[in-house]
């Protein structure tokens, strides 16, 4: 990455008398004490596993975890031979797209609500925070309990309202289970995205709205012509972080259906986990992890493009 500001500085330095090699090395190393702890932590705990993951995907590993040697692309051939792979990947993409779109639309509305003035706004903000503070796993477990086919609250309410005649085993049918789990994913995503939108709304200066009012714009017009365009950075950040989180929302599926029945509600992350720790096929699981990681990298690149877009705007 080229930074235009450092470029300028380099040019200025070259006209000055050339400092000694020692001083230049000293200057180059000056940031190190400040950055070294972060660099060390990122290198050992984030980058090492990336390398380890790629290595694993190329190795033959016994069920007890002992490396038996290099296996080339064998794990990938096995993985692409799995009948479940294509449905799992397609389901993952559908899961991410569905959850993120619904979450973003709802958070735009929620952000407005949390930004408006009304009695008890603080309390409403606190209530909206709760699913963020509570662990995703425990939220998923309470929803699983509410969807219980015998004693669950959902069946009880629907029976009392005469919407259904007999209790439904919601999580036993893949289609229904997916829809309920997507709802839970939206529920746990809303706090973060809504707060980012709210933060974005608070960066919009009041005089912009005043100018719009003077020009005679109605509230709908003002929203689409002024609020939404100015919210673009916030929407961008919220949706990309949301995409990554939803992609990785393992606990919801793990707690509610375990990816079952069979692998009918698996996404790439639960599928990967099952391959490693249920089928004891660590090598193939490594291959799945690499494929999954490639999908995430594509999104990172999209994010970086978006980030550059932000710099241009600034």
């Amino acid at each position, binding site marked *: 990455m080229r930074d235009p500001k450092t470029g300028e500085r380099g040019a200025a330095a070259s006209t000055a008398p050339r400092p000694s090699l020692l001083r230049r090395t000293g200057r180059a190393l000056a940031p190190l004490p400040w950055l070294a702890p972060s660099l060390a932590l990122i290198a050992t705990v984030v980058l090492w596993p990336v390398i380890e993951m790629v290595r694993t995907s190329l190795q033959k590993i016994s069920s007890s975890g002992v490396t038996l040697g290099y296996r080339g692309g064998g794990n990938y051939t096995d993985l692409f031979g799995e009948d479940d792979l294509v449905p799992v990947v397609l389901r993952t993409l559908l899961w991410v797209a569905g959850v993120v779109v619904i979450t973003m639309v709802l958070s735009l509305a929620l952000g407005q609500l949390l930004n408006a003035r009304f009695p008890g706004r603080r309390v409403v903000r606190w209530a909206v925070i709760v699913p963020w503070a509570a662990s995703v796993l425990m939220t998923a*477990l309470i929803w699983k309990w509410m969807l219980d086919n015998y004693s669950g609250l959902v069946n009880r309410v629907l029976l009392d309202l005469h919407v259904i005649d007999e209790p439904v085993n919601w999580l036993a049918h893949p289609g229904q289970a997916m829809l309920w789990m997507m709802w839970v994913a939206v529920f746990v995503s809303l706090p973060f995205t809504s707060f980012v939108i709210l933060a974005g709304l608070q960066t919009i200066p009041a005089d912009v709205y005043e100018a719009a009012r003077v020009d005679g714009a109605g509230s709908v017009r003002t929203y689409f012509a002024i609020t939404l365009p100015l919210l673009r950075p916030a929407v961008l950040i919220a949706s990309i972080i949301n995409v*990554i989180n939803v992609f990785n929302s393992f606990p919801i599926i793990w707690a509610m259906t375990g990816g079952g029945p069979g692998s009918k509600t698996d996404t790439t992350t639960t599928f990967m986990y099952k391959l490693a720790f249920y089928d004891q096929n660590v090598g193939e699981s490594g291959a799945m992890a690499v494929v999954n990681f490639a999908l995430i990298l594509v999104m990172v690149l999209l994010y970086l493009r978006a980030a550059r877009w932000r710099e241009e705007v600034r």
Partner: protein
Amino acid sequence: MTRRIVLTGVGWLVALAFLLPYLQMFVTALKPERELTRSPGTYLPSHWTWSNFTDVWSAAPVWTYMRVSLTVAAAATLVTLACAMPAAYYTARNRFRGRGAFLLLVLVTQMFAPTALVIGIYREMVALDLTDTLLSLILVNAAFNLPFCIWILHGYFSSIPKELEEAAFLDGAGRVRALTRVTLPISMPGVVTAIVYTFIAAWNEYIVALTVTASPDRRPLTVGIPSFVTQYQAHWQYLFATSLIAIIPVVVLFVFIERYLIGGLTAGSVK
């Protein structure tokens, strides 16, 4: 006026919708066990079994789970802060060769989650002989929350005028002194946001703890609590009683920083 009434009504409905699952958690935690198999289920407990909240402590090593969660979350927060603060401060104040590359690295690692790398993390911990240790959980939680903290703090430090520190330099203070005496106190909202964010993320982390730990006395709450409901037993009332014990302190923390949180997000990511 009508707008205000509608907003208030909608607001309270939204609040209720967000709290409903946790109210259900509370109600279920107070039901006697035999009532949990009744079909259809009851809305309220027939007998308010407050003793569930005391019984959980002997039904499972809840105290151990809690100690593990506390140790991991507190240590991870300390490590994250110790690494993030100098890095965020230096990059906010100085332009140097490699600054862009460092910020890019932080941005990229922010996009990774432990879930995506769990196989790699597991293999690394096996290689380092760190499986089934709290150190592995501390390191993983610290590393994966570091990017967000650097980002938030970088935003805060950048927004503080350099002149304030220069005045401190003139008074004979060094860089570290200027940081601790001038910049840090003004950036408290950012620091608090970073602390609470990391603590909660580590407190709620699940997949790495599930994968890396094996011994009962090294399991955090997230891994320990679901064991109340297995194929052999179904103590939902204990599961939710313990869940509430784990959730409430965290919610209180979050409510406490709500005001800072919006400021932190504004300075750190949205601007």
